[in-house]
């Protein structure tokens, strides 16, 4: 564990992964987008709207992956005081929030033609919305402190508390929804055809490798920001050290 706690070691591995992830992502997008948008056939029930499905499901998948990464990173940070783990969590959060927003928005854009409404209080939609709020809470809390080191720890605790609660929220919502609304609408109501699986997997792969590649970039950026902060501060330290002599 502590081998990775060293930023240099950690970044060596991350930087080694980066070209692969970036290249894979570029290729998968280049191949996947034409397949998803052009060559794959329309669904017999959903028609052309099935094309929304590819990005919708990909971003839904990503928003959950990213939250797990965030919770795991926060746990490692709190338990082993692993600074890089916290950077992973911190760098992931804005991406997770974007993926959650994208899931919601593409879902809404799909819902209007399919169900005739942008929004229903379906269990899965509702859980997604709450996850989005948890992301926002994490971001707002990390940002709210004058002292960024304090924000880190507070946000990490929140991420852990949230991950304990997510399953509870999920099941409560499911149960609530079935009590009130004898399923007019069920999202899973269509058979997955082989012709749909190919573009779906291409897009899933593209999104995931995109996340990994951008995560590395963001980690570099965060580390640089920390170095700049230290350098800035050290200039004051030097001057202060010189102060009694003045």
């Amino acid at each position, binding site marked *: 564990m502590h081998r990775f706690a060293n930023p240099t070691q950690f970044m060596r591995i991350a930087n080694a992964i980066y070209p692969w992830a970036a290249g894979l992502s570029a290729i998968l997008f280049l191949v996947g987008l034409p397949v998803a*948008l*052009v060559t794959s056939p*329309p669904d017999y029930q959903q*028609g*052309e*709207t099935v*094309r*929304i499905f590819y*990005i*919708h499901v990909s*971003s839904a998948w990503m928003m959950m992956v990213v939250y797990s990464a965030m919770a795991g990173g926060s746990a490692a940070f709190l338990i082993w005081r692993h600074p890089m783990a916290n950077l992973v969590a911190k760098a992931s959060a*804005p*991406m997770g929030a*974007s*993926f959650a*927003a*994208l899931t919601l*928005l*593409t879902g809404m*854009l*799909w819902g*209007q*033609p399919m169900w005739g409404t942008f929004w229903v209080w379906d269990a899965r939609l509702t859980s997604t919305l709450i996850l989005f709020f948890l992301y926002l809470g994490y971001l707002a809390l990390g940002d709210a402190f004058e002292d960024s080191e304090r924000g880190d720890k507070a946000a990490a605790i929140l991420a852990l508390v949230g991950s304990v609660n997510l399953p509870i929220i999920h099941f409560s919502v499911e149960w609530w929804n079935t009590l009130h609304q004898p399923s007019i609408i069920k999202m899973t109501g269509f058979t997955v055809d082989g012709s749909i699986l190919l573009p779906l997997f291409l897009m899933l792969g593209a999104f995931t490798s*995109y996340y990994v590649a*951008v995560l590395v*970039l*963001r980690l*570099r*950026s965060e580390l*640089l*920001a920390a*170095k*700049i902060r230290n*350098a*800035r501060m050290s200039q004051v330290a030097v001057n202060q050290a010189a102060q009694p002599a003045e």
Partner: protein
Amino acid sequence: MDAILKYLDMGGYAAWVWPAYGLAAVALGGILFFTLRDLKTREREFEALRSARRGGESSL
């Protein structure tokens, strides 16, 4: 031409399909843009600080 128009119409669902892809492009592109922008400004800032420090040292 017609084929392209027909394709762009997405079977009458153009108003839903294209915005969805547009939003995805904005989201993914936006993250990438801001990440790269921050990275670049920070790299520049760091270099500036380091060279300033070297300069300061030589004057000591």
